[in-house]
């Protein structure tokens, strides 16, 4: 149903200054983008901010996207992730220092195993992630989807920080060699 939506064309519309093109991208992608941002940031308000910023940045930088060479969706989500990770890591926020982070407790829906199972069957990424040991698979998915840092991973997996780092690196090499 959304198959006919051509994001490359819509980005080109943004370059030409067409707000309706931006709105079209919003209508098609914003709910999913908010899902991605919420998974990373946990807090709804921060996730909305990341989505909002991503669209402003998309509008401003649409001219540097080359639709003949790249995938518009990957580009859009790269912008979103970059923004969300900046919010998550670097930006000091006075108002958040006291509050508990987990406004939305991660549900079963967001467990690494569920996330992997949602990848489509034929997908190389799924095949290759499934070839990793469960804990290694979890580490990659938790960092990418939930934005866990090395030390958060170490805590979650009950391993020393140095071990997690080297172990994750090996997993990434395996993943790359599997995916080619």
């Amino acid at each position: 149903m959304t198959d006919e939506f051509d994001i490359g064309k819509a980005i080109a519309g943004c370059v030409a200054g067409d707000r309706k093109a931006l709105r079209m991208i919003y209508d098609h992608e914003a709910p999913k983008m908010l899902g991605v941002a919420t998974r990373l940031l946990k807090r709804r308000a921060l996730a909305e901010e990341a989505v909002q910023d991503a669209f402003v940045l998309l509008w401003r930088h649409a001219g540097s996207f080359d639709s003949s060479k790249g995938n518009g969706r990957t580009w859009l989500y790269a912008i979103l992730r970059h923004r969300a990770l900046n919010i998550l890591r670097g930006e000091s926020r006075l108002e958040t220092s006291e509050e508990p982070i987990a406004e939305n407790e991660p549900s079963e829906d967001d467990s690494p195993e569920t996330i992997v199972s949602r990848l489509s069957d034929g997908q190389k990424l799924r095949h290759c992630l499934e070839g990793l040991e469960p804990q290694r698979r979890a580490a990659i998915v938790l960092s990418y989807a939930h934005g866990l840092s090395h030390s958060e991973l170490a805590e979650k997996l009950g391993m020393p920080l140095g071990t997690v780092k080297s172990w994750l690196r090996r997993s990434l090499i395996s993943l790359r060699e599997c995916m080619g």
Partner: protein
Amino acid sequence: MIDRAPTAEDARDLLAAEYVLGLTEPADLPQVEAFIMRDSGFAAAVASWRARLAPLDSTASPATIDDRTWTGIEAALNEEAPLAAAAPAERQAQAQSRPQAPAPSAQTVPPIVPTPAIEPRAPTVSRPSIPQPSRQGFLAGLWNSLGFWRFAGLSGAFAAMLLAAGLGYVMREANRQPVLIAVLMSEGNQAAAVVNAFADGRADLLPLVDIQVPEGKAIEIWTLWDRAVGPRSIGLIQRAGRTTLKLEGLPRPKPGQIFEMTLESASGSPTGRPTGPVLNKGEATTAL
């Protein structure tokens, strides 16, 4: 499944993977992002990791988004459109609730910044702290548009990210390494364009942010390698886009050589020297 210790060759690729995963230590981010800007092979590695992991994004459950977010986006974009005041036709269109594409000149104009020109100009025109509104209302409009700076803090790193996020540039250039690069910065320390000089003597310029050129104007690109000779024009563009620089007859670019972009009249500077405001400027360094 293969499980081996990382080799030296892996190290670069792992740096790229960790960057995409969001695992780069915040303290290391500026360096990694500078590396993306300087090294197209590394940028390509980042792009590959993005493509590999991107399917994970589609596993997120869509969340209901309310119109408040869209309203916020529109507000931010309107804030960025300080020239709207100079476009009454557009205003009128909006007043008549006939949604229209905003005047393109109003959106993505990068700041016209009064950085010092390559060559000091006559005192009356040199490095104005505020462009003279009577002479060029356009510049005044830009200067006053503080909305530009709302995202200034994101922009340097953001430019690096764009380079590594499916920009065709990266893939095309991955096996054609520049020997010399210059990152041209705006005064807000925003990376605004990259000059690449290749071993075969060619060079090109790739803007990283869109630059809307007002009617009757053009962007002229200059280089300065010897103050005794002065700056030479090496390109004139009507709008921001990748462009080949004309270096024929000039000495091979070398580290320390300055490149800059100025706003000139459509046919180029009348004097053969930069006369308009400096848009972006940078120094060549050896590519890694």
